[in-house]
C-alpha cells in the first residue's frame, strides 16, 4: 500500500522527485547539468492511476476499433451478427491500444496496460451480464406485475388463453414460503449444530464429516430431489407434497449452510474462547455465550444465503412437490407449487400470456432473492466481533450490570469488568478497588488483556458461573493471565 501511495504522488512532478534519486546519482558521479535527463529512468514506475495520455489512447483505440469493425462488417468481409461485431471491435481495439501504448512505453508497460484493459473488460462483462439477466427479467415481467390479481389469485380459474387480468401466482408464493419454512426448520438447527461440531470437537471423524460436507456443496439439486423421491415417495409410500419438497430443499441447503457457517465460526478469535475457558466456563457455555454471539452476523448471513439458494431451486421441487394450479396451504397432503416451479411451467406453454406470467413470477422470485441478499449484506457486512452501536450499547449495559452485581458480591479478583464508561465504573468501584490495591501485580495484567479483547460479550460469558474463580481466585487469575497473554501474543 505505502509503495503505491508514494508512487502516485511522485512522478507528476519530476524536479521534486530528484531528491529521491539524488544519493544514488551522487555515488554514480553524474554531473548536475545532465541531472534532468538522468532523472528520467529513476522515476518510480506508476502502478495504476490515470494519465492523460492513457485516457486518450483508450478512447482513440476504442474509436478506431469501432471503425475497423464497422468497416469489416459493412464493407469488406461478409460478417454478421451483433455479438460477432462486438468481438471483432473489441479485438481491433486491443490491438490498436497496444500499438498506441507501444509508441511511448516499453514492452513490459504495454503488456501491463493491455492486461489492465482486459481485466477491466472481464469485470465489466461479468457485471453487464448480471445487469442484463436481472434487467431482462424485470422488463419482461412488466406486463404481468401491475395487475393486483397477479399477487392475490391462483391459476385454478384461469386457463392458458385468459388475459392477465385473471389468475395469479398466490399459490406459488404461499408454496415457496411454506417449503422454505420447512427447509429452514430442518436446516438451521441441524446445520448450525453440525458447524459448531466441526469447529468445537476436532478429531478424525469431524474432519471426515467436513470433507463429505464440502464435497456435497455442489450436490446436483436434481439428485437431492431424486433421493427424497426414492426415500419418501418410493420407500415410505408417501405422496408428493410440500413436505417432501421441503425435505429435498433441506438436503440441498444443508451442506451450503454448514460450509458457510463453518467458515464464519473459524473466524471467531481464539482469544475470546480462551478467555472464556480461562474463566472456568465449560465448553457449552463458551459456545453459547461467546462463540455463537460473536459469529451471529456471519451465521445469519450463512443461513440467508442458503435460503436464497434454496428458494430458487427448481429441480428438487419438480420431482417431489407435484404440480397444481390451486392454492394449497397444507404441506402434508396434496401437491404444492413453488415460485421457480411455477415459472418453469408457465414458460413451457406457447401462449404469450402464460409466458408473461412466467416472467412476472420470475421477477417476483428475483425480488425475493434480492431482498434476502440485501438483508444478508446488512446483517453480515461486518466481520465477527464487530458490533453496531446498538449492540455495543447493549453489551456495555450488560457488562455494567455484571460489574455492579460482582461488586455487590465483594469478590476479590473479579473486578475484571470495567466497561469503559467512567461514571458507572466509579459507582461500582469503591468496594472492589480497595481489594484491588492489595494485590495489584497479580490482577492488573489479566484485566488489561480481558478488556483489550474486541468483544464485550466475553464478560457476559461468566454470567451465572461465578463459582470457579470464587473457589480459587489466585489460581484462576494466573491461569487467565498466562493464557490470554499467550493468545494475544499469537494473534497480533
Amino acid at each position, binding site marked *: 500500500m505505502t509503495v503505491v501511495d508514494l508512487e502516485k504522488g511522485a512522478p507528476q512532478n519530476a524536479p521534486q522527485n530528484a531528491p529521491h534519486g539524488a544519493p544514488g546519482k551522487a555515488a554514480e558521479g553524474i554531473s548536475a547539468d545532465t541531472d534532468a535527463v538522468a532523472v528520467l529512468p529513476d522515476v518510480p514506475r506508476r502502478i495504476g492511476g490515470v494519465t492523460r495520455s492513457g485516457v486518450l489512447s483508450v478512447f482513440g483505440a476504442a474509436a478506431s476499433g469501432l471503425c475497423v469493425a464497422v468497416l469489416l462488417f459493412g464493407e469488406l468481409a461478409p460478417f454478421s451478427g451483433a455479438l460477432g461485431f462486438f468481438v471483432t471491435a473489441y479485438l481491433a481495439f486491443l490491438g490498436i491500444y497496444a500499438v498506441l501504448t507501444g509508441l511511448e512505453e516499453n514492452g513490459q508497460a504495454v503488456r501491463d496496460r493491455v492486461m489492465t484493459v482486459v481485466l477491466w473488460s472481464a469485470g465489466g462483462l*461479468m457485471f453487464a451480464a448480471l445487469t442484463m439477466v436481472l434487467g*431482462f427479467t424485470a422488463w*419482461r415481467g412488466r406486463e404481468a406485475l401491475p395487475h393486483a390479481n397477479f399477487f392475490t389469485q391462483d391459476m385454478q380459474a384461469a386457463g392458458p388463453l385468459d388475459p392477465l387480468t385473471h389468475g395469479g401466482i398466490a399459490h406459488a408464493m404461499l408454496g415457496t414460503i411454506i417449503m422454505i419454512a420447512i427447509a429452514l426448520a430442518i436446516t438451521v438447527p441441524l446445520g448450525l449444530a453440525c458447524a459448531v461440531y466441526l469447529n468445537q470437537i*476436532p478429531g478424525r471423524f469431524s474432519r471426515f464429516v467436513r470433507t463429505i460436507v464440502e464435497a456435497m456443496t455442489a450436490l446436483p439439486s436434481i439428485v437431492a430431489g431424486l433421493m427424497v423421491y426414492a426415500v419418501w415417495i418410493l420407500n415410505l409410500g408417501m405422496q408428493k407434497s410440500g413436505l417432501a419438497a421441503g425435505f429435498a430443499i433441506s438436503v440441498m441447503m444443508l451442506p451450503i449452510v454448514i460450509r458457510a457457517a463453518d467458515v464464519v465460526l473459524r473466524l471467531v478469535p481464539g482469544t475470546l474462547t480462551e478467555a472464556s475457558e480461562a474463566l472456568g466456563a465449560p465448553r457449552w457455555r463458551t459456545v453459547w455465550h461467546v462463540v455463537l454471539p460473536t459469529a451471529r452476523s456471519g451465521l445469519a448471513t450463512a443461513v440467508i444465503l442458503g435460503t436464497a439458494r434454496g428458494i430458487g431451486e427448481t429441480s428438487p421441487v419438480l420431482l417431489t412437490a407435484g404440480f397444481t394450479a390451486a392454492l394449497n396451504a397444507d404441506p402434508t397432503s396434496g401437491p404444492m407449487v413453488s415460485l421457480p416451479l411455477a*415459472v418453469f411451467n408457465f414458460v413451457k406453454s406457447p401462449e404469450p400470456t402464460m409466458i408473461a406470467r412466467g416472467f412476472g413470477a420470475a421477477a417476483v422470485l428475483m425480488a425475493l432473492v434480492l431482498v434476502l441478499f440485501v438483508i444478508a449484506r446488512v446483517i453480515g457486512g461486518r466481520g465477527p466481533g464487530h458490533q453496531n452501536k446498538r449492540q455495543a450499547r447493549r453489551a456495555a449495559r450488560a457488562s455494567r450490570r455484571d460489574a455492579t452485581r460482582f461488586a455487590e458480591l465483594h469478590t476479590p479478583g473479579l473486578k475484571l469488568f470495567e466497561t469503559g464508561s467512567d461514571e458507572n465504573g466509579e459507582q461500582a468501584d469503591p468496594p472492589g478497588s480497595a481489594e484491588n490495591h492489595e494485590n495489584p501485580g497479580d490482577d492488573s495484567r489479566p484485566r488489561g488483556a480481558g478488556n483489550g479483547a474486541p468483544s464485550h460479550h466475553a464478560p457476559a460469558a461468566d454470567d451465572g458461573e461465578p463459582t470457579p474463580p470464587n473457589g480459587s481466585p489466585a489460581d484462576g487469575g494466573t491461569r487467565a493471565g498466562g493464557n490470554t497473554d499467550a493468545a494475544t501474543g499469537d494473534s497480533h
Partner: protein
Amino acid sequence: MVSALRGSAGAESERPVPRRPSPARGLGDRIFRVQLTAAGVIVLAIMAAVGLFLLLRAGQALRTRGVWGFLTTADWQPDVHRFGIAAVLTGTLFIAAVAVTISVPLALGTALFISDIAPRPLRRTLVSMVDLMAAVPSVVYGLWGLFFLQQHVIGLSRWLSDWFGWIPFLHVDGTQPGEPLASQSVYTASTFVAGIVVALMVAPIQCSVMREVFAQAPAGEREGAYALGATRWGMIRAVVLPYGMGGIIGGTMLGLGRALGETIAVYLIISPVFTIQPHILQTGSNSVSSLIALHYGDASAFGMSALMAAGLALFLLTLAVNFTASSIVARSRSGAQSEA
C-alpha cells in the same frame, strides 16, 4: 496454535496431560458433546443416504442392463430394456466443457479485477454483486438464455461454423459457408447456447473462490515485486497467480461440478436428442439432469430405476470432481499465511 492445543486435548482426553487448557468436563459438557456429535452423525447419515438410496433404487436397472451396457448405450427406452447414458453423459460433459471454457477466463479476469485492479472503494460492492449473481435462481438464467441470448447467439454460431467449420466439433451439418438464407433453426437449442448460460451461472462461484485466494496473497511479496520494478501485471504474474494457482484450479473444478449438475437452465434451452452429438453449434443436445427432469413424470417403476441409475452416475461424477477440487485447494500453498 490454538487449534493444535485444542486438538491434542480432544484426541488424548484419556491420557493425563499436564496443564490441559480446556476446563474440566461436567454433565453439561458431556450432553453438549453428545448433541453436537449427533448433529454431525445425522448430517453424515443424510449425505450417505443420498448415495445409498440411489444405489439401492438403481440396482434393478443396473442388474438388468449391466454397468458396461448402461454406460455405452446411447438410447433411452427403459421399457424395452434398451437404455444407457452414453448420449446424455457425453452431452453433459460437452455442455460443462463449453461452460468451463467460457467461464474460467471470465471468472479469472473478474477475480483479478476485483482483487487488484478495481478502485478500492468499489471492491466491496463488486464482491457483493458477484455473490448476488451466484444466488440468482437458475430458472431466471434459463429464461434469459431461452428468450434473450438464443436469438443473439445465432449470428455468432453461424459465424463460427462458417469460418471454423473445419474444426470437427464446430461443424454444423446441413449448412454451406456463405449461404445467407440458411435456416437459423439449426443453430438454436445447441450445446453452445446451453454452455454459455451455464457459464454465466458458474462464473460467479468460480470468481468468488479465486478472489478469496487472490486476496490472501501475501502483501510482503506483492510489495517486493513492486520494489523490484514490476508493473502491476508483472506483479500479478509473479506473485498473485502462482500463489493462487490452487484457488484457480479448485474454483474451476467447483464450477465444473455445478455445471455438470445444472438442470433447469439446460432443460429449458436444449432440444433433447439421444445420440452422441459432438457438434456443439448444432441444435440438439442432452444432459443427465435434464433427462431425469424430462422422464421422471412418465416413467414406469423400471424406468424410474433407470433414472435413478442415471442420477447415481451424475452423483458419482460430481462427487469425484468435488473431491479432486477440495484436495487440490487444500494441498496448494494457497491460503497459507506468509510471515511478511
